[in-house]
C-alpha cells in the first residue's frame, strides 16, 4: 500500500516573543492511498495548524512529514509551491475562487502554474467541471454561482493536476445542509474512484461521511478510529 502521509513526532511551536505556544505536541499518524479521513477537533485544538502543515503552507518546528514519499520539512518556499501544485488539491471553507474570473479559468489555474499547454488545460478543465456537474456553468463568474456550485468549482480545481491528496478545510462550513450533503457525496464518489481525501471539520455529521476519524485536543491526537457505518 502506497503511503501518502507519514507524520512522525511532529511539533509546531508558535514563538510570539515572550510566550511559546505549542500548537502540535509530537503527533504521529499514517495515511495510505485511497483513505477517506476526517480530522476533527474544537477550535484551538491544533487541527488548523496541522492542516497548514499537511497542505505544505507551513513547516513543522520539529519532526518529519513525508508527503507521497518526499520529506517536505526542510523544503524552500518555492519547492513547497511546486509541491502544493503537484501533490495537493485544496478545498477551502470559503471556496477561495478568484473573483471576476470564470469557473473554467479558476479550474485552469493550477494547470497554468504546472505549465500545462493552453488547449490541454481547457480540455481538462471542461472534463472536471462536467465531472462535478457544472458543465452548464463553465463561463459563469463565482458571484453568479450558489455556494454549493462554487464549492464544486473548487473541487474541480483541486483535481486539476491529479494530486495524490485532496485536502479539504471545513468544506461545508459555509453551506446549507442540502449543499453540504451534495458536496460530501461528491467527496465520497471521488474516494470511491480511488482518491485519497482528508477533511478537516468540527461537525460530526460531516465526519460520518468518511471512513476514519482522527480527533484532536490541545495539540494531541486523542483518538483515531474507523467509522462504523450503520
Amino acid at each position, binding site marked *: 500500500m502506497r503511503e501518502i502521509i507519514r507524520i512522525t513526532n511532529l511539533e509546531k511551536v508558535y514563538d510570539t516573543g515572550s510566550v511559546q505556544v505549542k500548537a502540535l505536541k509530537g503527533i504521529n499518524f499514517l495515511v495510505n492511498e485511497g483513505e477517506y479521513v476526517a480530522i476533527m477537533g474544537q477550535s484551538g485544538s491544533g487541527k488548523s495548524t496541522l492542516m497548514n502543515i499537511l497542505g505544505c503552507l507551513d513547516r513543522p518546528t520539529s519532526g518529519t512529514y513525508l508527503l507521497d514519499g518526499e520529506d517536505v520539512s526542510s523544503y524552500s518556499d518555492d519547492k513547497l*509551491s511546486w509541491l502544493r501544485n503537484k501533490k495537493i488539491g485544496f478545498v477551502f471553507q470559503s471556496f477561495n475562487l478568484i473573483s471576476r*474570473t470564470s469557473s473554467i479559468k479558476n479550474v485552469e*489555474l493550477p494547470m497554468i502554474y504546472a505549465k500545462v499547454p493552453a488547449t490541454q488545460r481547457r480540455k481538462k478543465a471542461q472534463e472536471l467541471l462536467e465531472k462535478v456537474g457544472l458543465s452548464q456553468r463553465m463561463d459563469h463568474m463565482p458571484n453568479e454561482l450558489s455556494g454549493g456550485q462554487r464549492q464544486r468549482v473548487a473541487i474541480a480545481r483541486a483535481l486539476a493536476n491529479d494530486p495524490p491528496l485532496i485536502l479539504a478545510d471545513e468544506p461545508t462550513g459555509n453551506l446549507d445542509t442540502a449543499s453540504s450533503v451534495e458536496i460530501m457525496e461528491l467527496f465520497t464518489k471521488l474516494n470511491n474512484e480511488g482518491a485519497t481525501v482528508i477533511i478537516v471539520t468540527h461537525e460530526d455529521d460531516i465526519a460520518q461521511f468518511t471512513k476514519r476519524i482522527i480527533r484532536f485536543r490541545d495539540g494531541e491526537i486523542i483518538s483515531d478510529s474507523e467509522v462504523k457505518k450503520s
Partner: protein
Amino acid sequence: MMLLWENMKLAFSAIRINKMRSFLTMLGIIIGIAAVISIVSIGDTMRGVIADQFAGIGVNRVDVYLQSDDDTYDDSDLFSGDDIDKIRDTFGSNIEYLSGASNQKAVLIRNRTSENVIFNPVREGYTKVQPVDVVQGRMIDGKDNDGEKKNVVLEEKTAMKLFKTTNIVGRKIKVSYDSSSGSEVSEFSIVGVYRNSQTPLGKLLSGGSTEKAYIPESLVFNSDSEAFDLDMFVSPDANAQQFEKIFTGYVARLKNKNISNVVYYTAKSDMQSIDSIMSKLSAAVGAIAAISLLVGGIGIMNIMLVSVTERTREIGIRKALGARTIDILVQFLTESAIISAAGGVIGTSIGVGVVMIGGAVFGIRVIVNPITVIVAVCFSAAVGIFFGMFPARKAAKADPITALRYE
C-alpha cells in the same frame, strides 16, 4: 515563457476590470511622455529650422576680414580688387566663389515712395553657390560686372511696394547710396526680380526684414574702393580645416599681418555651436519634463500597492495552488509595465499629434525623431517596472496562510 503570455492576459483583464482607475494611473505617464516627446520634438524641429536657415546662408560660406590688435583699422586692413584677384588665382577651384562683401544700405526712390534695401554686390556664378529664385528677368551676370553697369535685381515685395507690380524688368529706379566718392544718387536699371521664400520665423532668425538688392560687384569694389570683408564659398571638395589653415596663412602674408589678425568666420561653426546649445537646451527642458514621468511612476506604485492589498486573497489562493514567488512578482510587474507602456504609447501619440498640429499651423517642417519615440516608450515601461517592483515584491512575499485569511 508560457507564463509571460498568461501574465499579459491577466494584466489586461485586471486593467479592464478597473478601467477608470487604470486610466487615471496612466494619466501621469501619458502627460509625462507627451511632454517629453513634444519638447524634444520642438527642440529637434527648431534645430532643423536653424539648419535650414544656415543652409540659406550657405554652409560652405566664409566671411574673411582683418582685425588689428587694437581694434582700429586703416587701409592695409582692406582688400583691394587686386588682392581679391590674387586670392582667386592662387586658390583656383578650391574657391567656388569669391567677392568683396558689403552690407551697404541703399534707399530706392520712386516718385514719393522710398524703400530701404541692402546692397548685395555679386559676381557671375553667385547663383551656383547660393540659389536665387529669379521670378522676372535675370540675375546679375558677368557682363554687368565687366561693364560696371548700374543694374539691379530687386526682391518681389520691394518691387510691389514701389511699383505695385513685379513686371518691372527694364524700368529705372533712383538709388541713393554711399559710394567711394561720398553720398550719391544714381539711376539703376532693373534687370530682374527674385523671390525671398524665407518663412516669417526664418526671417526673424536671420535678423531683420530689410530685403537685399543685388548689384554688380564691380560697382562697389574697384580700383578706388576696397572691401572690408570677403564673401567666399569654399569648394565642398576641399578639406575645410586644411583650407582654413593655408588660406589664413596666405592672407596674412599677402596683407603683411599676423595669422591671428585674419578672421575666418564660417556659418558652419556658428551653426554647430547654436545646434549644440539648442540640443542641450532641449535635453535640459526634456529632463525637467521627465520629472513628471517620475511623478507618474509614483502614481503607478501607489495604485499597484492598493491593488496588491485588494488582491491579497487572490495572491494567497494563487500561492496555495502552486504559484512561486517569481510568478506573483512577474504577474504584478507585467501589470504595472503594461499600464505604463500603454500610457507611453498614448502619451507618444498625443505628443507627436500636438507637434504635428503645431507644425501644420505654423507651416514648419516638423522633425519627430523615431529614436525619441522608442526611448520614450521603453522608458515609460521601465518606469512601470521600476515603480512596480516594490508593490510586486510586497505581493510576492505574502505568506499564503495569512493571505488566505485576509478579508
